C-alpha cells in the first residue's frame, strides 16, 4: 500500500540494498528482464503488504511459532517488521497448519463503499478465498517483535538484518534484544494462478540456530481492524465527506493511506439521548455494547455521542484493558471565527461531516496509540495531519483556506510508520495502555536465546495464581507478599504445595524501575520431593512470604515502580503466572522511616529477617533489639521482634567457633509481646510465618505466636466466643499458621 517502487527491477545479478533506516543505498545501474520464461524472481513491489510468517517445525511437537510480518516497499525504501507468537504443541495436538482467523475486516465489504485495492490483481497474487486477512493470535502467546536493520533484494531473494525484541510474558514488557538474519526467496510464475497466494521460503538465523521459514502473503495492506460504530439518536456517523481537495474521503480511505484495511460497521444508532456525557458513562456504554468480542481479529468501538464539555472527541478508555473505545461529540460546535469555512461556522460537528470525520479518525488513532504531535516524545512537527488537535490545525487555517478545508486527511509519516511497524502490544486495541512504546523498547542486552523466544510455555488453563503485595513501601521497610493458587477449572488438580521462594517451584520475576529483570528467590534454598495437594474446582491454597531480603540482597532498594510477577511450576507440565503487580518504592518520608531504613539496610539484619534468626551476628542482634523496642508499632519493628523471639526461643551452636547460645525463653516471650501489642492476630501470625525460614516448618516463632494469641483470647463459652470480636481473627491466624506448615486446600 505504499507508492509503487519507482526504482527499476533488478536483473538477476543486481542487488537493491537498503540501509538500517530502510532507505535505498545502491540502486541498480539498469534493469534487465527476467530470464526464465515461466518462473522468475518476484518484482519487489510484490513483497509489499501483510504476510503470515511461519517457522517450519523441526519435529512434530516443536512449538508453533508464527505471526504477522509487514513488508513496506516504498518509492526508495524497504522496511520489514513482524510480531511472533509461540504456542507449545502437545502430544495430542501436533503442529498443524495455521488457520486464518474468522474475523477479518474485509469479510464485510458491504459495510463500506470502498473496495479492495486495485493493485491486488497487478501483483498477480489473487486469492479471493480466503479474502485478505491479518494474522492475529492470542496475546498470551506473544513472544517477540522484530524490525529490519538493513536489507537487500537481489534475484528474488530478500535478506533482512533484523533486531529482535524479546517479550517477557510475565511482565508484559520487552526485556532484551538480539540480532539475526531473515532470508526469503520469492519466485513466481509469470502466468497468473488465481486463488494461490504468494509464498516465500527461506531461513531465519538467530540465537545461534537456523530455522526454515515460510511466508504467505495475506494482503496488500499491512494491518486491519474492524471499527464498530454506535451512535446516539439524531447524531450521525459521517460515512463520507468532501474534503478541501474536492475528493470524497471515508474513514476507510483515510486509514488506507496508512496501509490499514479498516472496515466500518454501524451497529446501534439509537442510543438514548443524554445531553452531556461523562467518562464513566462512556465506559459503561463501551462495556455494555451488544457485540461480544470473538476471535483474535482487531476491533475498536467508536461512539458518536452528544457532548462532553466543549470537547470534539476523546479516547476515554484507559483502564486495565485499555484503548478499546473512543468517542466523538456531534453536538460540539465549531466557532464563528473567520478562519472557519462559512458553511461550518457555529455549526455542530454533526452538520460538518469533514470536521467530524477528521475528529473520529483522530480519536481512533489514539486508540491505536498515536499521540498528538505536540505531546509526542519523538517531537514530530505540529501540522495539519490527522493526529494534530483540531485547534492546532485551525492555527494553520486562513480566511482564504479555512478549516476544515485546510486539513490534510492523511497521517504524518511518523504516525504512518507507527501504525504499520510498531509492535502489536503497542498498537492493538486492548493491550498496552495509551502512551506505551513511545520510549525505548527495552533496556539491557540479552543473552542469545533460541528462535522460540524466552518462553515456550503456555498459560495454564484452569489454574489462576494471584499475587498480593503492598502498593508502596519505603526503602528499608519489611515487605511481605501473599500467593494464592486457585483451581478455576472443572475437575480436580494435583498441584504443588510448595508456595515458597525457597523450594524451587515458586519464583518472583521482578522488573526494576530501570527495566532490568531478575529472579527473586529466598536466601535459603531447599531441595526435596514436591508434595502435592488436590485442589477441587473452586478451591485454593495460600501462603505468605517475605520479600524484604532475598537472593537479590535487600530486594527493593531502588526508588520507583517495580513490577513483580509470580511464576509457579504447578505440576510437571504446567507453569502458571500471576498478573503483574506493581510496588512503588519511595525514599523514607518521615524521621521514623529514615531511622528504620538506616537500621535495616545492612546485610546482617537482612539475613536475620530472611532466616528468622540472627545466629552469631551480635551487631544484627543489637539492631533488631533496638527496632523491636523502638518501632514495634510498625511491621518492620514487629518483624524484628519476631526474629528475636524465634532466635531466643531455641539454642544456637556455632560449631566452627565452638560457641553455644542457650535459649532464653523469658526474653523470647518479651519480644513476642512486643510484636503482638496492638496488632491483630492475623497480621501477627502473617509476620511470624514470613520471618520463619520456609525450610524450617518447626520454627518456634509460629507455634509460639499462635499459642500466645490463643492464651490471650477471652475466656468465655464457645457460643459467646463465637460472637466475640477477634474470634474470626484468631481463626484466620490459625489457618495462616497451618498453611505455613502445609498449605491446605480450602
Amino acid at each position, binding site marked *: 500500500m505504499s507508492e509503487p517502487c519507482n526504482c527499476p527491477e533488478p536483473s538477476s545479478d543486481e542487488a537493491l540494498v537498503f540501509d538500517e533506516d530502510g532507505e535505498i543505498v545502491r540502486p541498480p545501474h539498469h534493469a534487465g528482464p527476467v530470464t526464465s520464461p515461466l518462473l522468475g524472481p518476484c518484482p519487489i513491489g510484490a513483497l509489499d503488504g501483510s504476510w503470515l510468517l511461519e517457522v517450519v517445525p523441526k519435529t512434530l511437537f516443536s512449538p508453533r511459532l508464527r505471526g504477522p510480518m509487514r513488508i513496506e516497499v516504498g518509492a526508495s525504501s524497504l522496511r520489514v517488521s513482524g510480531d511472533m507468537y509461540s504456542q507449545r504443541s502437545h502430544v495430542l495436538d501436533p503442529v498443524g497448519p495455521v488457520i486464518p482467523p474468522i474475523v477479518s475486516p474485509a469479510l464485510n465489504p458491504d459495510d463500506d463503499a470502498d473496495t479492495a485495492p486495485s493493485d491486488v490483481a497487478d501483483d498477480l497474487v489473487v486469492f479471493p478465498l480466503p479474502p485478505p486477512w491479518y494474522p492475529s493470535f492470542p496475546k498470551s502467546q506473544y513472544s517477540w517483535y522484530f524490525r529490519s536493520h538493513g536489507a537487500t533484494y537481489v534475484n528474488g531473494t530478500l535478506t533482512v538484518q533484523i533486531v529482535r525484541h524479546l517479550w517477557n510474558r510475565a511482565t508484559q514488557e520487552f526485556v532484551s534484544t538480539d540480532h539475526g538474519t531473515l532470508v526469503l526467496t520469492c519466485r513466481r510464475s509469470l502466468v497468473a494462478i488465481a486463488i494461490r497466494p504468494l509464498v516465500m521460503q527461506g531461513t531465519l538465523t538467530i540465537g545461534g540456530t537456523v530455522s526454515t521459514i515460510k511466508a504467505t502473503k495475506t494482503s496488500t495492506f499491512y494491518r486491519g481492524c474492524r471499527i464498530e460504530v454506535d451512535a446516539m439518536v439524531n447524531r450521525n456517523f459521517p460515512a463520507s465527506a468532501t474534503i478541501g481537495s474536492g475528493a470524497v474521503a471515508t474513514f476507510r480511505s483515510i486509514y488506507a493511506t496508512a496501509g490499514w484495511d479498516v472496515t466500518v460497521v454501524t451497529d446501534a444508532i439509537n442510543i438514548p439521548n443524554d*445531553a*452531556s456525557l*461523562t*467518562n*464513566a*458513562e462512556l*465506559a459503561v456504554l463501551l462495556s455494555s455494547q451488544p457485540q461480544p468480542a470473538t476471535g483474535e481479529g482487531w476491533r475498536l468501538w467508536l461512539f458518536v455521542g452528544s*457532548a462532553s*464539555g*466543549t*470537547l*470534539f*472527541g*476523546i*479516547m*476515554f478508555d*484507559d*483502564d*486495565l484493558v485499555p484503548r478499546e473505545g473512543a468517542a*466523538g461529540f456531534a453536538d*460540539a*460546535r*465549531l*466557532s464563528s471565527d473567520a478562519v472557519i469555512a462559512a458553511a461550518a461556522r457555529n455549526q455542530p460537528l454533526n452538520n460538518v461531516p469533514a470536521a467530524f470525520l477528521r*475528529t473520529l479518525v*483522530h*480519536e481512533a488513532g*489514539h486508540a491505536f496509540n498515536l*499521540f*498528538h504531535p*505536540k*505531546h509526542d516524545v519523538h517531537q514530530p512537527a*505540529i501540522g495539519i495531519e490527522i493526529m494534530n*488537535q*483540531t*485547534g*492546532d490545525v*485551525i*492555527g494553520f487555517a486562513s480566511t482564504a483556506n479555512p478549516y476544515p478545508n485546510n486539513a490534510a486527511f492523511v497521517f504524518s509519516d511518523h504516525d504512518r510508520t507507527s501504525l504499520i511497524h510498531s509492535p502489536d502490544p503497542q498498537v492493538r486495541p486492548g493491550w498496552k*495502555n*495509551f*502512551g506505551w512504546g513511545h520510549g525505548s523498547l527495552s533496556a539491557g542486552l540479552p543473552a542469545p536465546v533460541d528462535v522460540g523466544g524466552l518462553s515456550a510455555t503456555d498459560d495454564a488453563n484452569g489454574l489462576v495464581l494471584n499475587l498480593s503485595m503492598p*502498593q*508502596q513501601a*519505603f526503602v528499608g521497610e519489611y515487605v511481605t507478599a501473599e500467593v494464592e493458587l486457585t483451581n478455576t477449572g472443572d475437575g480436580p488438580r494435583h498441584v504443588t504445595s510448595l508456595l515458597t521462594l525457597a523450594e524451587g517451584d515458586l519464583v518472583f520475576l521482578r522488573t526494576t524501575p530501570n527495566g532490568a529483570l531478575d529472579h527473586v528467590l529466598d536466601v535459603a534454598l531447599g531441595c526435596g520431593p514436591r508434595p502435592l495437594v488436590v485442589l477441587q474446582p473452586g478451591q485454593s491454597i495460600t501462603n505468605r512470604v517475605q520479600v524484604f531480603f532475598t537472593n537479590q540482597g535487600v530486594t527493593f532498594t531502588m*526508588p*520507583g*515502580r517495580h513490577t513483580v510477577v509470580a511464576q509457579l511450576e504447578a505440576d510437571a507440565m504446567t507453569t502458571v503466572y500471576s498478573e503483574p503487580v506493581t510496588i*512503588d518504592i*519511595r*525514599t523514607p*518520608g*518521615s524521621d521514623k522511616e529514615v531511622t528504620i531504613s538506616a537500621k535495616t539496610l545492612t546485610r546482617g539484619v537482612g539475613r536475620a529477617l530472611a532466616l528468622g534468626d540472627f545466629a552469631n551476628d551480635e551487631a544484627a542482634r543489637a539492631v533488631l533489639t533496638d527496632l523491636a523496642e523502638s518501632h514495634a508499632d510498625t511491621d518492620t519493628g514487629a518483624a524484628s521482634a519476631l526474629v528475636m523471639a524465634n532466635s531466643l526461643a531455641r539454642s544456637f551452636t556455632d560449631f566452627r567457633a565452638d560457641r553455644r547460645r542457650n535459649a532464653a525463653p523469658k526474653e523470647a516471650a518479651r519480644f513476642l509481646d512486643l510484636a503482638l501489642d496492638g496488632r491483630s492476630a492475623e497480621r501477627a501470625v502473617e509476620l511470624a510465618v514470613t520471618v520463619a525460614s520456609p525450610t524450617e516448618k518447626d520454627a518456634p516463632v509460629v507455634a509460639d505466636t499462635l499459642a500466645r494469641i490463643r492464651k490471650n483470647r477471652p475466656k468465655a463459652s464457645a457460643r459467646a466466643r463465637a460472637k466475640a470480636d477477634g474470634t474470626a481473627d484468631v481463626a484466620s491466624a490459625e489457618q495462616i499458621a497451618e498453611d505455613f506448615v502445609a498449605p491446605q486446600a480450602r
Partner: protein
Amino acid sequence: MSAGLQLVLRAAAPLPIDECLVMVVTLEAGSEASTVSARLNLIEGDLAVAVDGPSGQTARCVWPWPVDAMPRWVELAPGQRLAGALPLLATDTSSPLFPSPGEYTVTATFDAAPGAAVSSAPVSVRRTPPDAERRAAVLRERDVLQSLLSASVLGAAADGLVVLESSRTTTTRTLSALALDRVVDLVASVDPDDDRSVADVVAAVSAVLPGGFADADPRRAAIEPLVGRRLEEQALFRGAPF
C-alpha cells in the same frame, strides 16, 4: 503575541499525601495586550506540568485521556490575568503524582499561542506523611485518581471516593463530591462566609470542570451561588480574564 506574558504558579502550603492538591496558575499579560489561549486547564491539552520528586525522578502531569477540541482565545489587556486550576493528582499514566512525603518541585508550561509556550518558575511543594493511611491508600488507586479527574465514577472507585468524602480538606471533599455527584450536599456543608473554604471549592471545581469548557455542566450551576465576592475567584470559576 506573547510578549511579556508570565505564567505564575501560586505557592501551596504543606499538605499530607492523603489529601488532593489543586494549585492555581495565572497567566499575566505584560505591558501589551495579548490574544492567548483561554484553555488554561489540563483537559484541553495546552497546559502541562512537570513534577520533580525527592528521589530525583520527574513525572509528567497531563490529562490522561487524549482529546480533540477547538481552540479558545481570550484577549488579555495589559496587566490583566487569566487564572486556571491544576488538579495535581496523577501522572500522565494515572499513577500517583506525589507517591511519598517529601519536597517536590512543580513547573507548569502553557502553549499560550502557536509557537509561544511560556513556563512558570519552579515552585516547591512539601507533601507530608498522611494523616490517615486508608485515605492515602485510596489516593493510590488508579480508578480513584481517574474518577477524581474525570468527575465521574470509573471502575471500582465508588468505595474509595466515599472514603475521601470525609477528608480534612475542602479540596478533597469537593473533588470526591463532584465524582459522586453529591454537589448539593457539598454546598450545604460549606460556610459561604468562610473565604478559604469557598476559594478551595472554586479551585477544585475549576480544576476538573473548568469555566469556558464545562459551562453547561449542571454541577457548576449548583456551585455557582457559592462563588465568592472576590474578583479572582469569579474569574477563575468562569475562565475569564480579570
